[in-house]
């Protein structure tokens, strides 16, 4: 089971056709494998937060059982653009 930031980033980028993905390994802040991800994808458009998070959870279904603490933020490209302008 590969659990690296690069591996997770690439998997999220491909499966969710993301235009931007950030994966931060937060393991050092905790005592077990931890990651924080930011995913920007048009697949999130028109979807409530719960469904967006489910898409990410499904993408990483095999990895999540081995990750102790997982944090995520999901944005549409429009939200991402607006956020960067602020």
């Amino acid at each position, binding site marked *: 089971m590969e659990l690296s930031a690069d591996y997770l980033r690439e998997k999220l980028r491909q499966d969710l056709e993301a235009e931007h993905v950030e994966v931060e390994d937060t393991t050092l802040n905790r005592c077990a494998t931890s990651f924080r991800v930011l995913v920007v994808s048009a697949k999130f458009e028109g979807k409530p*937060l*719960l469904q967006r*998070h*489910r898409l990410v*959870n499904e993408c990483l279904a095999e990895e999540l059982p081995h990750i102790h*603490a997982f944090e995520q*933020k999901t944005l549409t490209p429009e939200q991402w653009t607006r956020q960067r302008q602020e």
Partner: protein
Amino acid sequence: MAAGAAEAAEAAVAVVEVGSARQFEELLRLKTKSLLVVHFWAPWAPQCVQMNDVMAELAKEHPHVSFVKLEAEAVPEVSEKYEISSVPTFLFFKNSQKVDRLDGAHAPELTKKVQRHVSSGSFPPSTNEHVKEDLNLRLKKLTHAAPCMLFMKGTPQEPRCGFSKQMVEILHKHNIQFSSFDIFSDEEVRQGLKTYSNWPTYPQLYVSGELIGGLDIIKELEASEELDTICPKAPKLEERLKVLTNKASVMLFMKGNKQEAKCGFSKQILEILNSTGVEYETFDILEDEEVRQGLKTFSNWPTYPQLYVRGDLVGGLDIVKELKDNGELLPILKGEN
């Protein structure tokens, strides 16, 4: 030094060490008028050394009680006679008869048992019938404590004999909902129930307070496919989860509870919920592996904490944080959607 030696001598006298079966039998006869507590111990077991200290303290508090320690492996005749299979084990004797038993290093339980037997010893003999009635009432309550009650050695999680283990396996396989009583925890119940139900062995299974039987009978009922009709079934997991997620309008499944969160995410979500002032209840998934795993499938959500409003999943900490930042959390918690 002299004072210290006197105290040490006094303590040594308070707890007698028995080194032979003959000495033990003599002590039983000699102490027939008072309570005799016997600690079956081994020098290699740290809990036994601790319990010897506990017993020394109890001996000071109860000068009329005789406390004895007996090295279990050094006096095998006595250990085998009383079926001592682990140390520490405590036996309680009155009138040369065994009246109670405590397996394991449970200092509070030992203290409680000594106190109970000391105070029960103050009953005049004429109240024996009264005591028996009290015991029968207690046994009736116990056998009716749940629709299906199993009296066993140990607990379903840690059965302490092969027959009790097999019984639990059968009940679990048939998804039977039952509560249990560890007969090792109470010698009075252990002996009393044999008379009460006219059944000499354990495990014993009761349904609606009626004795169904022991392991052999349960096996026969299983073979004849009657077991499922006699015993109450545990509700299906999905139904149970539906009930749990609707237990309160706002329901949080977390690690720990409101007083003590056991992981950072659960702690953070508690702080957010507390800041809203909305009433909510919690469920500690660390206490129930079935719920912990079942809810992941039930809600298609792989992590904890999980927040539900009126039975619907809201999400985990990240979602709750975003909802709070967007000002949407309070309306959702109040069910205004």
